[in-house]
C-alpha cells in the first residue's frame, strides 16, 4: 500500500484560542478530551479537490507511479467541490489516467477509507483511493468541541489487490442516528451530538472490536479511527488486555475524518512496516452512525 498525503496549510492554534476564550484550566480540560493543540486546516485557496491533487502528486513523486496502470479511482469525501458530480471525475480529469479508468465517488465519513478498501479489494486491477476532507469549511461559528477536533487533509493510497487479502470484514449501522454527525443540505454548520457518538463507541464500537480480536487472534496491530483523544483513550484503556498494538496520533494531528486511517497507517508503517504474512485490523467509525472494519493480511 503506497500512500501520499497533503495537509491543510493554515495552522489553527486551538490551545491559544481556548485559553483566550475560557482560561487555561478550561482550555486544558477541553484539550484533554479533543487532543491536538494545533490543527492543520484548509486555507481559503484550498479545498477537497486541491488537497486530493496535491496528495496524488506526492504519491507519484515518492513512489514513481505509472498512472496508466491504475484501473479504478475511488474518491472519498464529504466535502466535494460540487454538489454533483463528486470529486472523482474532477480528479481523473487532472491527471493522465487511462481512458478506461473506472471512477467512483463515496460520500462517507470516518468509515470512508475502510469502505473504499472493501470496494477496491472486490475490483479488478490496481485502485487509487483518495480520502480528502475539509470539515473546517463546515464550521463557521466557533464550537469548543468541533472547532478543536477536526483537521483538513488528503491521502492518496495505491492499492494492488494481489498484495493483500481480506480475511474478514465487519459492519455495524445504528438506525436513526444519522443526525448525530451531520451537515444539512445547503447548510454550512457541522452538528455533532458528542454523547450519542460516545454512546455508540461504548455500546457498539468497543464490543465489536473486542469480538473481532477474539475471532482473529493472529491480529498483531490495529489501526483505529482517531475520533478524539477521549475516544482513543477509552478504546486504548479498554483494549489493553488484548496485547494488540494500537498506533495513535490524535494528540499531534487531530481527526482528519476519512483521511485519518491512511495518515495513521502512513506514519506507523514508516517506522514499523507491515511484514509479509502479517495480519492487522483497520476500523473506522462515525458518521451514520456506522462502523466499518477489515482484517487484512499482507500476502507472502
Amino acid at each position: 500500500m503506497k500512500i501520499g498525503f497533503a495537509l491543510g496549510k493554515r495552522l489553527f492554534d486551538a490551545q491559544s484560542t481556548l485559553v483566550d476564550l475560557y482560561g487555561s484550566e478550561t482550555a486544558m480540560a477541553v484539550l484533554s478530551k479533543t487532543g491536538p493543540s494545533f490543527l492543520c486546516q484548509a486555507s481559503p485557496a484550498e479545498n477537497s479537490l486541491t488537497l486530493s491533487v496535491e496528495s496524488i502528486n506526492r504519491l507519484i513523486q515518492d513512489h514513481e507511479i505509472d498512472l496508466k496502470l491504475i484501473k479504478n479511482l475511488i474518491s472519498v469525501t464529504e466535502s466535494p467541490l460540487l454538489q454533483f458530480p463528486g470529486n472523482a471525475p474532477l480528479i481523473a480529469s487532472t491527471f493522465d489516467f487511462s481512458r478506461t479508468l473506472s471512477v467512483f465517488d463515496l460520500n462517507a465519513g470516518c468509515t470512508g477509507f475502510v469502505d473504499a478498501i472493501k470496494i477496491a479489494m472486490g475490483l479488478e486491477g490496481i485502485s487509487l483511493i483518495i480520502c480528502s476532507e475539509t470539515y473546517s469549511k463546515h464550521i463557521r461559528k466557533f464550537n469548543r468541541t468541533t472547532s478543536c477536533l477536526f483537521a483538513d487533509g488528503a491521502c492518496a493510497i495505491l492499492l494492488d489487490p494481489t498484495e493483500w487479502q481480506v480475511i474478514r470484514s465487519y459492519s455495524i449501522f445504528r438506525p436513526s442516528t444519522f443526525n448525530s454527525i451531520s451537515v444539512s443540505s445547503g447548510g454550512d454548520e457541522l452538528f455533532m451530538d458528542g454523547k450519542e457518538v460516545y454512546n455508540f463507541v461504548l455500546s457498539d464500537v468497543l464490543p465489536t472490536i473486542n469480538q473481532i480480536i477474539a475471532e482473529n487472534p493472529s491480529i498483531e496491530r490495529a489501526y483505529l479511527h482517531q475520533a478524539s483523544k477521549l475516544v482513543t483513550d477509552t478504546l486504548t484503556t479498554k483494549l489493553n488486555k488484548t496485547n494488540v498494538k494500537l498506533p495513535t496520533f490524535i494528540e499531534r494531528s487531530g481527526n482528519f475524518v476519512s483521511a485519518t486511517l491512511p495518515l495513521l497507517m502512513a506514519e506507523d508503517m514508516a517506522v514499523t512496516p507491515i511484514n509479509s504474512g502479517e495480519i492487522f485490523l483497520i476500523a473506522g467509525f462515525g458518521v451514520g452512525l456506522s462502523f466499518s472494519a477489515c482484517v487484512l493480511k499482507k500476502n507472502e
Partner: protein
Amino acid sequence: MKQIEFINVVASALGVDSSTVTMDLKIGDIREWDSLGHLTILTSLDAYTGEKASEISNFGSLDSLSALWSALVNAGLASNS
C-alpha cells in the same frame, strides 16, 4: 458511591462548585454542561467506578443527573442510603 460523592465527581468534571450541582440538573442547564462537559462527566464517573459505569447499557446517552444516578444505583454502583 454515595450521592454526595456523585455530586462532587460531577462538579469536579464540570469545573464548578458542588453547590451548583443539584440532582435536577441536566445537559444544557449550565454553560459548563455542554456536549464536551457531558463526556467529561461520563469518563469521570467511569474512572470513579473502576470502569464499571461504562458497561451500563446506553450509559453514554443518559443526559440528566437523575438518570445517571438511577442507572448507577440499578447497576449496584451507587447507593441511596
